[in-house]
C-alpha cells in the first residue's frame, strides 16, 4: 500500500547554463498535503513541470507511483492545474462541459470516446464546483472566478490520486477560494488524495497543509507543518512574526 | 531560447546571402561576353526573331522575357531596367502588350537609346475584334478631344488587342519598323539589313499566302481556343470565326457560362479539335476536351518560347507552320 507517490533523487535543471534547480531530493507519500513555497524564481514551477514530464531534468531521477517518470503512462492518476489557465481563451469556442470533459482524457485509450459513466463524472464535478447551471455557456462568457471553477472541475473530474496545483487561487474571489480549499481538504481526508499546492498565500496554506516544502533552487526545508513551525531556520528566513502568523492559523 | 533563435536567423541569412551571390555571379558571366556589338533589347519572341533575321550576327539581340515566362503578367525586374539603360536599341510590341514600357522609358537616362514601337501605323482591333476599324477611328477622334484631360485612364476603358504579329501583313510592317531602328543606330550595315529584311518579308508573305490557301479549303469556318484571345488578327485576315475562353490576357478565369457556351458552340459546329495555348498548363482545354470528346491541338501565340523550344532552335515561321498544320486538321480542310 505505501508505495511512494513521488520520489525525486538528486534532481538538477539548468536553463541556458543558469542553475534553476540543484540537488533536489524528496519523497511524497500517499495522503500528503504539501504546501510548496519559496520566493519568485525559486524553481517551483520548473519542479512541477519536471514532475509532470513536461520538462526533462538535466540530471537526477523522478519516479511516479513507483515507476520512472520516463516510462510512466498512467497520467490519469495525476491531475494538474496550471497557473496559466487564465491565459487568453477569449475567443475559444468551448462550452464549460466540453472543457471539463477534457479532464477525462487521460484515462482513455484510443479511440477515445465519452460514455454515460463519463457524463456522470462530469455532472458530479460540475456539481462539486456549483457550476451545473452554466455548463452550456462558453468559457469566455464567464467571470474569472467562474472560469477558475471550471478548470478546477476539469482537474478533479477523473478523481486523480495526485493533484498538482500551481497557484490556483491567484486572482480569484474569496468565495471560490474558500470553496476550493474546502474541496481540497475533503479530497485529502476522504479519498486520501495526495496534493501538492504551490502558493504565495501563506495564510491559507497554514490552515490545510500537512507538510511544507521551502524551495529556493534547492530544498531548504521539507517536513511536517509542526516541524516547519518549530524550525529556527524558517523563523530566521521569514521573520518570527510571519512564521507565527502561518503557524498560528494552523492551530 | 534566444541563442537558438539567433542560430536560426544566422543560418537563414547565410542562405539568403548565398542565394544573392549565386544569382549575381550568374548575371556577371553573361555580361562579360559582349564586346562592342550593338545591344538590342526585345520584349517578345517575334521581335527577337525578326531582329535576328534582319541583322544576322551583326548585333547582340536580347529577349527580355526569360524562357517559359508568360508575357502578359511580366514586369521587368530592376536588373532588366539596368539592361535597357545600357542598350542601344529597345524594341517593344506596343503600348497594349507592354503597358509598363512607357513609364520605364520615361525614367531612363540613356539619351542615345533608340526606341521602336513596332505597332506604329498598325491599326489595332478592339474588344474581341468586333469593333475593328470603326473603333480605331472613333478612338482617334476621342483622343483629340481628351488629350489634355486624362491620358492614362484612357487605355483602360478601351482595351485593344495587342497580338498584332499574328497577322503576317502586320508582321511585315513590324519588320520595317525594326529595320528603320537598326539602320538609324548602325547606318554602315544598312545594305545588309535592308536585303535581309526584304528576304524575311517575302518569307512572311509566303507564309501569309500559304495560310490563305490552306484556310480557303476548310469545311469549318470557326475555331475554339481554350486560351486567351490571341488570334483575333489571324482569324480576321482569313475570314474565320474565332472564340477564346479568356480575354486579351490569360490572367483571368472563365465563368461557367463561358465554358458552357464554348462546349455548345463546339457541338453545334461539330468541331473535333480544341486548341490550347503555349506555356500554360492546358487545364481549361482538357476540361473542354473531356466535355466534348475533342482532341487537343496547340495553337502557339509565339509570345515567348519554352526552354526546350529555344534549345531546338524554333523560329517564328516554324511555329506558324505548326499552327497552319493544326488549323488544317482542326478546321477539317481538304
Amino acid at each position, binding site marked *: 500500500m505505501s508505495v511512494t507517490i513521488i520520489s525525486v533523487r538528486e534532481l538538477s535543471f539548468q536553463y541556458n547554463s543558469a542553475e534553476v534547480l540543484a540537488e533536489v531530493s524528496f519523497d511524497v507519500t500517499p495522503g500528503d498535503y504539501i504546501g510548496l513555497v519559496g520566493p519568485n524564481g525559486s524553481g517551483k514551477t520548473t519542479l512541477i513541470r519536471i514532475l509532470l514530464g513536461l520538462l526533462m531534468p538535466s540530471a537526477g531521477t523522478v519516479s511516479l507511483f513507483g515507476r520512472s517518470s520516463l516510462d510512466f503512462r498512467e497520467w490519469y492518476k495525476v491531475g494538474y492545474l496550471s497557473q496559466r489557465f487564465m491565459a487568453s481563451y477569449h475567443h475559444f469556442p468551448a462550452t464549460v462541459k466540453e472543457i471539463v470533459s*477534457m479532464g477525462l482524457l487521460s484515462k482513455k485509450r484510443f479511440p477515445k470516446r465519452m460514455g454515460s459513466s463519463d457524463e456522470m463524472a462530469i455532472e458530479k464535478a460540475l456539481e462539486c464546483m456549483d457550476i451545473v447551471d452554466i455548463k452550456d455557456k462558453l468559457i469566455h462568457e464567464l467571470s474569472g472566478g467562474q472560469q477558475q471553477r471550471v478548470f478546477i472541475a476539469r482537474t478533479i473530474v477523473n478523481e486523480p490520486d495526485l493533484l498538482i496545483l500551481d497557484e490556483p487561487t491567484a486572482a480569484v474571489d474569496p468565495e471560490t477560494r474558500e470553496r476550493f480549499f474546502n474541496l481540497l481538504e475533503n479530497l485529502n481526508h476522504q479519498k486520501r488524495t495526495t496534493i501538492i499546492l504551490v502558493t504565495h498565500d501563506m495564510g491559507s496554506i497554514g490552515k490545510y497543509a500537512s507538510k511544507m516544502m521551502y524551495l529556493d533552487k534547492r530544498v531548504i526545508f521539507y517536513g511536517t507543518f509542526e516541524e516547519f513551525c518549530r524550525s529556527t531556520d524558517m523563523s530566521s528566513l521569514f521573520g518570527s512574526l510571519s512564521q507565527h502568523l502561518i503557524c498560528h492559523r494552523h492551530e | 531560447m534566444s541563442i537558438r533563435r539567433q542560430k536560426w536567423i544566422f543560418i537563414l541569412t547565410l542562405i539568403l546571402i548565398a542565394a544573392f551571390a549565386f544569382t549575381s555571379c550568374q548575371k556577371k558571366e553573361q555580361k562579360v561576353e559582349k564586346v562592342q556589338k550593338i545591344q538590342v533589347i526585345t520584349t517578345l519572341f517575334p521581335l527577337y526573331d525578326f531582329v535576328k533575321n534582319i541583322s544576322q550576327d551583326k548585333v547582340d539581340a536580347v529577349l527580355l522575357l526569360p524562357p517559359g515566362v508568360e508575357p502578359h503578367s511580366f514586369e521587368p525586374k530592376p536588373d532588366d531596367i539596368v539592361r535597357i539603360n545600357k542598350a542601344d536599341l529597345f524594341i517593344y510590341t506596343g503600348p497594349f502588350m507592354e503597358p509598363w514600357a512607357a513609364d520605364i522609358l520615361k525614367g531612363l537616362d540613356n539619351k542615345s537609346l533608340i526606341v521602336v514601337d513596332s505597332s506604329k501605323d498598325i491599326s489595332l482591333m478592339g474588344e474581341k475584334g468586333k469593333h475593328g476599324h470603326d473603333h480605331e477611328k472613333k478612338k482617334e477622334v476621342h483622343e483629340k478631344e481628351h488629350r489634355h484631360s486624362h491620358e492614362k485612364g484612357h487605355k483602360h476603358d478601351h482595351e485593344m488587342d495587342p497580338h498584332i504579329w499574328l497577322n503576317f501583313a502586320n508582321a511585315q510592317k513590324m519588320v520595317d519598323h525594326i529595320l528603320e531602328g537598326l539602320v538609324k543606330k548602325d547606318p554602315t550595315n544598312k545594305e545588309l539589313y535592308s536585303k535581309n529584311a526584304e528576304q524575311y518579308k517575302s518569307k512572311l508573305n509566303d507564309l501569309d499566302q500559304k495560310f490563305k490557301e490552306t484556310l480557303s479549303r476548310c469545311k469549318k469556318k470557326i475555331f475554339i481556343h481554350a486560351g486567351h484571345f490571341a488570334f483575333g488578327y489571324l482569324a480576321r485576315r482569313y475570314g474565320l470565326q474565332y472564340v477564346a475562353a479568356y480575354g486579351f490576357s490569360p490572367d483571368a478565369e472563365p465563368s461557367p457560362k463561358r465554358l458552357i457556351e464554348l462546349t455548345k458552340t463546339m457541338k453545334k459546329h461539330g468541331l473535333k479539335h480544341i486548341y490550347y495555348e503555349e506555356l500554360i498548363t492546358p487545364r481549361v482545354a482538357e476540361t473542354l476536351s473531356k466535355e466534348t470528346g475533342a482532341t487537343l491541338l496547340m495553337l502557339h501565340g509565339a509570345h515567348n518560347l519554352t526552354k526546350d523550344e529555344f534549345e531546338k532552335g524554333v523560329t517564328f515561321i516554324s511555329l506558324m507552320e505548326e499552327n497552319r498544320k493544326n488549323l488544317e486538321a482542326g478546321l477539317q480542310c481538304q
Partner: protein
Amino acid sequence: MEMIDFLSYGFIQRALITGFFIALLCSFLGFFLVLRRLSLIGDGLAHVTFGSVAVALFFKTFALYVSIPVVMISALGILRLIEKAKLHGDAAIGIVSSLGIAIGILLASLAGGFNIDLFSYLFGNILAISREEMILSILLSGVVFLVIIFFYHDLLSVTFDEESAKAAGVKTRRINTLLFLLTAVTVVLTMKAVGILLTSALLILPAVTSLQVSKGFKASLLISSLVGVLSVIGGIFISFWLNLPTGATIVLFNFFIFMLVFAHRRYNIKKRRLL
C-alpha cells in the same frame, strides 16, 4: 430547365463534387489552424508548393512527387520552429514560406527558364478539375474525417491548451505532426485543383465565420464545415447565374456570409447592452 442543363456538364459536376469535399477538408483543418493562430499556414505552404514546383521543373520530374514530400517536410519545419525555437506561428510560417519562394526564384534563374510558366501552377481552376483530382480530394477528406472522429478529444485538448493536454497524457507531438502533415497534403492537392486563392480562403474564412456564432467546440466545427460547403456550392451557382469567374465568386460569397454573421453578432451584442 437552364439549371438542369447546367448540372448536366461534367466539369460542373466535378466542380460541385470536388468543391464539396475540398470545402469540408479545408474548413475542418482550418478550424483547428485558426484557433491555434496558424491561419496563414495555407498561404505559407502554398508558397512552398510554388518553390517545390520549381524544383520539380528543374529536375524534370512530375510536380506532385516533389511537392508532397517537400511541403510535408516544410510543414514539420514550421512545427519544429514553433516548438523548439519558440517562435510565434506567424514568424515560423513566414520563414518557411519565404524560403520556399526564394528557392523557387533561385532555381528559376539557375535553370535559365522553364518549359512552362511557373506562376500558372499557382492558379488551379475549380472549373477545370480532373477526375484524379476529384478522387484524391474525396479520399483525402475521408482520411481527415476519420482522423477528426478518432482524435476529436485529443485535437480539442491540444487546441485548447497544449501544456495541460500533454500533462493529461495526450501525445501532443503526434497530434501536431498529424495535423500539420494533413494540412500539407491538403494544401498541395487543393492548390493544384482550385488554386492558391481558394486554398487560403477556405482554410480561414469558414473557421472565422463559425467563431462568430460559436455555441461550443463541436458546434463550431460543424458550422465551419457547413459554411465552407455552402460557400463553395453557393458560389458555383452564383457564378453561373451572374456569369462571373467561379473561384473569386466563392471567396466573395464566403466573405459575404462572414459579414452577415458578424453584423448579426454585433447587433445582438448592442441589443443586449441596451437591455
